[in-house]
């Protein structure tokens, strides 16, 4: 299986250097289509996605993570670092389960 990246141009370029294919996503409109292409990418094992883009696709990603097996989705921060108001899915789940650590 393979990696796949959805990010802005520079990050996709960066990952290309280490042999990870990807697609540059510009705005919310293209995000959905790109996501569909990414999850249907043959043999996709792990999908790397930036928080900025993940934000456009919140519902889709949550649904995907709960229902489907591959690819797994990992969110990463982009050049601007971790978005402050962005809760990761894991955190959301931790709250849902009601366990505080």
């Amino acid at each position, binding site marked *: *299986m*393979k*990696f796949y990246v959805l990010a802005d141009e*520079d*990050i996709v*370029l*960066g*990952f*290309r*250097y*280490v*042999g*990870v294919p990807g697609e540059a996503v510009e705005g919310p409109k293209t995000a959905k289509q790109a996501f569909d292409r990414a999850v249907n990418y043959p043999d996709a*094992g*792990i999908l*790397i996605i930036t928080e900025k883009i993940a934000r456009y696709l919140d519902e889709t990603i949550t649904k995907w*993570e*709960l229902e489907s*097996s*591959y690819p*797994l*989705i*990992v969110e*990463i*921060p*982009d*050049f601007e*670092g*971790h978005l402050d108001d962005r809760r*990761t*899915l*894991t955190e959301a*789940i*931790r709250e*849902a*389960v009601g*366990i505080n*650590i």
Partner: protein
Amino acid sequence: MAVIKVNPNRMELMNLKKRLKLAARGHKLLKGKQDELVQRFIEIVHENRELRISVEEELSKAYSSFLIAKAVMPEEELEEAIMIPSMEMHLTPGQKAIMNLRVPTFELKAGGDPVCYGYTETSVELDNAIQIFAEILKKLVRLAEVEKSVIELAEEIIRTRRRVNALEYILMPNLQETIKFVKMKLDENERSTLARLMKVKDIVREKRQS
């Protein structure tokens, strides 16, 4: 609490008692499972947090060297350097069981040399950035596994908790209530039989005397 509709007889009483015992045992087991799940969940959430922090740190390092590389190198050469990426990332999927839950695992195999271009035209920063990116991928694999495990565990915890609660707050009280009801009904029957017998005896005695 609602009483389950059954015929109040001894047979049913026995069945009900059996069911209650079974429910109590199931409840105990499920409760144990839930506790263990939560324990695992906490462990894995901790690991997730540590991994995430380290990945984010390294990513920002990689980004900054990459941006510098971009700044000092002409665009065409940057593109040219990766025209033929010699590096290939292969993931071999596998499975691991956490408390009977199957979670996916991956094994990362990196093929080829990351620095696949001539050294003359490219900058040191680019080399650095690539090296860090390659390192990050390893951690990202682990992160993906861990995050998926968190999701699966959370779902299982919620499921188990629902079952524990259903047993504890609905099925078991219902059964207890029903057992009580059946017992009372049986006692009542017994008393009425007794009363009837006494009455019959009285009548018989009266007839003899007359």
